[in-house]
């Protein structure tokens, strides 16, 4: 199997010798779900404190943030300095993407174990931390991005001497990826950890409030709280009270945090309100949950629900029971009784399409979707609940990446079932104008989701993965030790792989095909043809040469001797199959010459095996026909010709007539002249 793992390029580093990553010194406090952080040394500026972030190839990073933050770093935010591929010896030698960040040396405000930094006190928080974080967030929001990873353990003192703080980086993993339930604003918190989506600027302010609350209490409030109980508490009492456990924060800080942690988007404080707060203009707001309350409680699974968000969540978590429940009740009456303020229009009823039980037990095909539609109606600003999954449409890219990382085929299957345009359209109709971003997010996904159900090579869920996460490297097992971020890198890696005798049928690898189809224009058809030809090795090898040759030319790649040799060797069977001996020799000689050159394009152009094979087949067929004709003629000629043979008779009589005519002509001449 070792021959099937691509070897890493020897001694290659995008940074040259500038950065040294000390893999023996991990920096846990800077680690994120997107990878690990290690101590690093900048050889050109030894006094600078930096750390190297080694990215996990299975977790997409927020690539769109890199350039803006690297070119114009934001104060009070850890911004990337540089990035590139490096070969690291962390757990076996591997090529990984490494991003270099400035390293704050003062330590996290709360460490990974939940211990508060002794330098943190209400004064520091009020005078320094709030302002620093506000500055970082407003600057980030100004360039069009949100942070979505703010937590008390992700805020650091710049140095041991200074009280200035910086907030951790937000580029190494998708927005809100794997954030604790408590640290996410209520409108997206109910979604699964890996599918909370892009969020909004308001979600950053909620996280700021939650982080400040933890710092005020000196505890990691997000830890050790079960989702169900905390969710119920957050809905019933408000996030501020639920997280604090009923403890109030007196004074101005309390006002600020309550404002920031408001669960209703309209009531949540933003940058303007925080600035007002700095200037002493109080703007107290209380959260109200009246809009989410049902007119009558609904008993489901032994619990009486009054809040429709909690009911939606309960339905979403227990979809089978919810389906049974919905099928047994008189849905229109239940709607009328529970939501007196809402009118169940015919359109909405059609969209919800809740059908009563049809007499036989068990789940119907549409039951899970029916539950999802009802959940969406109950909680239009919340996530989509489907078969136990809850997700925000913009969180699907990260969710799919996570499912591939975990190799969770069930989750992929559920996501695939959701790729039903009719179902998504119904959800969009149900949400209506209650969730402004939902329709746009679904529309953005629609085109990509078409690939999901396809079994074709270069499509399927693998294609969805790469289309949704273009920054993700190729996840093929053969590339587990290298980072394949582009087709160019893939071609070079394949050359190395071919050098150690691997890479057989690499183009039939679904990840490789999907990656190429995503990153290369018009390659989809080539992969379809390859899939069709996979049962015909000779044709498959010819098509492989053509594809690689085309890529080598298009990407203007240098010579790839090993890959070229491998591909030419793959053509041996085809050459052997040529019927014309002369042609076989000529082609073999040409291939032997080109094999050493390493130019696949020339193999494709100069030899053009497909054309040669077609010509050979055609000429062979003609030769066979000729032989058959000759044999037929020979058999005919082998028969003995008797005077009774029609041909002999015809020729004989004609000859006799000719002789008679000449005799007559001669005698006539002699008689009269």
């Amino acid at each position: 199997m070792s021959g099937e793992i691509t070897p890493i390029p020897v001694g290659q580093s995008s940074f040259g010798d500038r950065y040294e990553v000390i893999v023996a010194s991990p920096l846990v406090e800077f680690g994120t779900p997107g990878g690990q952080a290690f101590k690093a040394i900048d050889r050109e500026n030894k006094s600078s404190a930096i750390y190297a972030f080694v990215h996990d190839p299975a977790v997409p990073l927020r690539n769109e943030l890199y350039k803006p933050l690297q070119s114009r770093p934001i104060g009070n935010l850890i911004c990337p300095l540089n990035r590139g591929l490096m070969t690291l010896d962390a757990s076996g030698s591997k090529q990984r993407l490494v991003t270099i960040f400035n390293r704050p040396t003062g330590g996290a405000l709360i460490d990974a174990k939940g211990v508060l930094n002794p330098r943190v006190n209400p004064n520091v928080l009020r005078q320094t931390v709030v302002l620093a974080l506000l500055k970082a967030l407003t600057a980030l929001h100004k360039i069009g991005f949100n942070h979505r990873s703010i937590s008390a353990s992700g805020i650091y003192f710049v140095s041991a001497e200074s009280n200035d703080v910086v907030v951790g980086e937000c580029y190494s993993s998708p927005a809100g990826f794997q954030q604790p339930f408590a640290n996410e604003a209520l409108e997206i918190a109910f979604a699964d950890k890996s599918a909370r989506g892009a969020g909004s600027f308001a979600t950053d302010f909620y996280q700021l409030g939650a982080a400040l609350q933890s710092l005020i209490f000196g505890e990691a409030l997000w830890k050790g709280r079960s989702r169900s109980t905390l969710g119920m508490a957050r809905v019933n009492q408000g996030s501020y009270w639920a997280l604090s456990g009923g403890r109030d924060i007196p004074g101005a800080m309390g006002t600020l945090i309550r404002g920031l942690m408001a669960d209703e988007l309209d009531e949540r404080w933003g940058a303007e309100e925080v600035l007002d707060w700095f200037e002493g203009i109080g703007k107290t707001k209380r959260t109200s949950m009246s809009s989410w309350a049902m007119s009558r409680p609904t008993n489901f699974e032994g619990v009486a629900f009054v809040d429709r968000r909690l009911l939606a969540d309960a339905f979403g978590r227990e979809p089978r029971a919810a389906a049974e429940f919905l099928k047994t009740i008189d849905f229109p009456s239940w709607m009328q009784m529970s939501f007196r303020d809402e009118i169940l229009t015919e359109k909405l009823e059609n969209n919800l399409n809740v059908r009563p039980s049809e007499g036989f037990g068990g789940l119907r095909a549409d039951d899970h979707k029916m539950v999802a539609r009802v959940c969406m109606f109950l909680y239009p600003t919340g996530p989509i609940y489907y078969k136990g999954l809850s997700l925000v449409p913009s969180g699907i890219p990260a969710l799919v990446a996570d499912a591939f990382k975990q190799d969770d085929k069930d989750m992929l299957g559920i996501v695939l079932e959701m790729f039903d345009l009719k179902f998504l359209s119904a959800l969009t109709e149900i949400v209506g104008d209650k969730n402004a971003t939902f329709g746009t997010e679904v529309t953005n996904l629609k085109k990509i989701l078409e690939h999901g159900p396809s079994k074709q090579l270069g499509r399927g869920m693998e294609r969805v993965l790469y289309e949704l996460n273009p920054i993700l490297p190729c996840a093929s097992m053969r590339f587990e030790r290298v980072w394949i971020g582009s087709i160019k890198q893939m071609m070079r890696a394949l050359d190395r792989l071919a050098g150690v005798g691997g890479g057989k049928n690499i183009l039939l690898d679904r990840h490789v095909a999907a990656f190429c189809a995503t990153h290369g224009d018009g390659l989809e058809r080539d992969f379809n043809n390859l899939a069709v030809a996979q049962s015909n090795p000779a044709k498959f090898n010819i098509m492989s040469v053509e594809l690689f040759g085309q890529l080598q030319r298009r990407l203007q790649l240098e010579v790839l001797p090993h890959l070229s040799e491998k591909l030419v060797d793959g053509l041996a069977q085809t050459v052997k199959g040529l019927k014309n001996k002369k042609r076989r020799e000529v082609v073999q000689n040409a291939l032997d010459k080109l094999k050493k050159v390493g130019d696949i394009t020339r193999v494709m152009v100069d030899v053009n095996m497909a054309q040669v094979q077609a010509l050979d087949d055609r000429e062979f067929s003609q030769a066979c026909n000729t032989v058959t004709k000759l044999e037929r003629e020979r058999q005919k000629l082998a028969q003995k010709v008797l005077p009774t043979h029609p041909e002999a008779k015809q020729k004989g009589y004609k000859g006799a007539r000719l002789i008679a005519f000449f005799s007559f002509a001669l005698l006539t001449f002699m008689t009269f002249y």
Partner: protein
Amino acid sequence: MAKPAGKKPLTKKRPVRRAKKEMNPFMPILLICLGGLALFKMGAAILLAAGLVPTIVLGITGKGSFKSEKLQCVSFMNLSGVLTQFPTVWARPNSVYDIIGEPINLLVMWGAAGFGYALIFVGPMIAAFAVQMLAQERTKSIIQQKQALVELWGTDVLGSKDDEPAASKSKLKK
């Protein structure tokens, strides 16, 4: 289902067309020519009528394939025989009865026609021999062509065993 008895089938039987016998133009032409000639030279017409008896017989009785070739062959030879006496009759038409009366003259005229019959008999034999010789030459050339094709394309070009007589294939392989 059985058809009800006494009812005629709906489809009418087409009357079978008998192939018309091709009319032989020989006799009319000959009669016209002899008639025309009789207007000018009665003796010459009588000589021709008597001398061309074998041709006339063949023209009337001849059938089967290559009838025209056979008739032409006998006609030309018969005419050759008649031509030997033709200048004499042309010059002295009254001598025609003497000439016809001489058996030797009739033998010459009718013998020439017999020679024509002999040509008809021998012609196909000679032709069969010649065709056989040519076929042997052509067979040699075919074998050479096949050999060249096998050398270029291998024995696969000979096709499957079912298509090819075993003897010829093994011969070529050798």
